[in-house]
């Protein structure tokens, strides 16, 4: 028994199941981060004073990380484009690069975090750090999750390319959508936490 519309699109919607599924998932993610942003605004506007992010956080490192994440989005979309051009070899290179860039992001974040802890700055120190650690921590979990999925498609998951290349390309596209979303969240996190 095969579930229909995993590979081919349904005529009246023009979509595959996976495409709808991933967008619905992203919709829920919007609400998840939306709630955290709302909390941030509420707590910030209610506070008598609020530190500027760059007085506490390391802007150059975060700028670097922003560029890293943006680059990883490009390599991700290139990985998918390579599949569309039937170039499996290039796909592997781009996918590898995406995972690597995600890894770089996490390593930089690790240094940022440990630097904070060394200076006695914890989530409990004040509400700015509380929201900073919560938002970036949750975001890091997403980066990590995305890397795992991508690693799966680079490794064992890529077997599907031989039997059903279209389906494989679809899956990579969906994983890419998630990855870009994680990038997109960071694009908003970066100015809100670091620059304002």
């Amino acid at each position, binding site marked *: 028994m095969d579930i229909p519309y995993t590979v*081919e699109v349904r005529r009246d*919607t*023009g*979509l595959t199941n996976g*495409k*709808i599924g991933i*967008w*619905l998932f992203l*919709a829920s993610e*919007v*609400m998840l981060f*939306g*709630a955290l*942003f*709302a*909390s941030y*605004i*509420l707590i910030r*506007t*209610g506070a*008598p004073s609020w530190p500027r992010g*760059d007085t506490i956080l390391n*802007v150059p490192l975060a*700028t670097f990380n*922003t*560029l890293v994440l*943006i*680059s990883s*989005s*490009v390599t*991700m*979309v*290139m990985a998918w*484009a390579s599949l*569309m*051009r039937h170039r499996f070899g290039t796909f592997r290179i781009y996918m590898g690069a995406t995972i690597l860039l995600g890894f770089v992001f996490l390593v930089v974040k690790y240094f940022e975090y440990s630097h904070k802890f060394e200076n006695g700055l914890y989530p409990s120190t004040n509400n700015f750090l509380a929201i900073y650690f919560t938002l970036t921590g949750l975001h890091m979990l997403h980066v990590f999750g995305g890397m795992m999925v991508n690693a799966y498609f680079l490794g064992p998951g890529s077997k599907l390319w031989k039997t059903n290349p*279209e389906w494989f*390309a*679809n899956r990579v*596209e969906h994983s*890419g*959508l998630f990855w*870009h*979303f994680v*990038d*997109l969240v960071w*694009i*908003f996190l*970066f*100015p*809100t936490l670091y*620059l*304002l």
Partner: protein
Amino acid sequence: MTSDHAADIDRHVRVYITVFGALMALTIITVVVSRFHLPVPIAVSVALLVATIKGSLVACYFMHLISEKKLIYAVLMLTAVFFVALLALPAVTVHNGYWIH
């Protein structure tokens, strides 16, 4: 995706590279602007404006929203409405007006 031809893909790839350049440039711009220490309302508006442009670029081109199906738009519109309701939530609370510290 079956209808995409190789030429289409090549065109896409060129778009990706352009968008990549734009994103890099915009990132640098926000960081530089933040150095000027503009008054808070202006700083917030600029930062959010740039972030929104960047976000839209990612969504439209990397996530192919620019050429997506109606159904996806519908889902996202609905989400956007409730997202706005959620962001209105702080307004609901703070303007109760009794908050003291």
